[in-house]
């Protein structure tokens, strides 16, 4: 059996940022003021707020969308 991964989290996040007028460049604080309380699906059986999903991001300012997603991805992976 092949394990199926939940793939749509980035899509939901991108859609919500567009819906709430998150335009880059933007500070982490301002981004979270706009969409921090919005709930997104991060797994088949798990929904969290964007604030929680972004809680491990280390930097406080995103000069562009690429920087935001790099920082987010970096915050969501842990090596042994």
């Amino acid at each position, binding site marked *: 059996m092949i394990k199926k991964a939940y793939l749509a989290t*980035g899509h939901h996040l*991108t*859609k919500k*940022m*567009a819906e709430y*007028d*998150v*335009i*880059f*460049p933007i500070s982490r604080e301002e981004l979270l003021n706009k969409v921090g309380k919005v709930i997104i699906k991060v797994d088949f059986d798990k929904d969290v707020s964007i604030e929680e999903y972004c809680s491990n*991001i*280390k*930097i406080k300012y*995103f*000069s*562009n*969308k*690429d*920087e*935001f*997603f*790099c*920082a*987010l*991805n*970096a*915050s969501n*992976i*842990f*090596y042994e």
Partner: protein
Amino acid sequence: MNIGSTHVISGKFEVEALSVIVAQVPPISAQTMDEVNKNIDQICDWMDKASFGFPGFDILVTAEFALQGCGPFWKDVMLDYDGKEFQRLRDKCKELNTWGIFCGVVKEYKGRKGCNLAFTIDNLGNIVQEYVKMNPWLPAEQTCPGWKCPVVNGPKGSKISLIICADGDYPEIWREAAVNGSNIIVRVAHYMAPWDKAWEITNKAGAYFNQSYVVAANCVGVDESFSYFGDSMILNPDGTIITQAPKGLPWLIKADLYPQIIDKMREEQATSNYVWSYNKRGASHPGFGGTGASLSEYNAYREENNK
């Protein structure tokens, strides 16, 4: 117009259409100032043609050495920066209420002798941008290497930088132009056979690697030494060609560009954002937390290897 980003580019934004003309001209390989002025006559004539063929155009670009040619007597026809030849071009831009980009070898610029100078004239006849060729074609060209790549705010949201011919054979100057903020990189050239494929490859690479429009203006004709093939072209930021002039013929090409799209891409593209990510290597690794690694690990860019 662009293959774009994996992630959606969000938000509304305004764009303006910038109407760009390239005049692919056949300059005389000038030996006298009279012949230089005949070349300027020709440029002014092509500007008149453009004004009829493409009414309302915003900016016209001509090739490197369009004023003087590139023959063995180039030192005899060097120009004065404040001389009447440049003034004729300034007057023409003012007359047609349009911007122009030209290139000529000047006797002296900012205290440096023998500079291959590209310059932008605005619609009021002012020279608003100057660029000295950073990479003279070696070993043939004996002009002084340039020292900076400025960007000028042009019409319709354009941010224009200039590079010249052999500059475009080196990735650094394209990157320098983009990092300095340009959304349109103009490459004026006197590119000759047998390098017509290299001309296309480097223009495409410059556009793609730097997510910029590229306007590449070449000459046509044969002088004492070389054949200049033409193939002037205007390219999208994904490296695709919007329009291209034919090989070997004097020609005008025109494209409408949307400069604000480039600015927006650099803010909203989550992939292929090379002007940002080139020195943010591995920014998605947890150890780099969004900031990434710089270029300092490249031998090519270490100061000790550049002496």
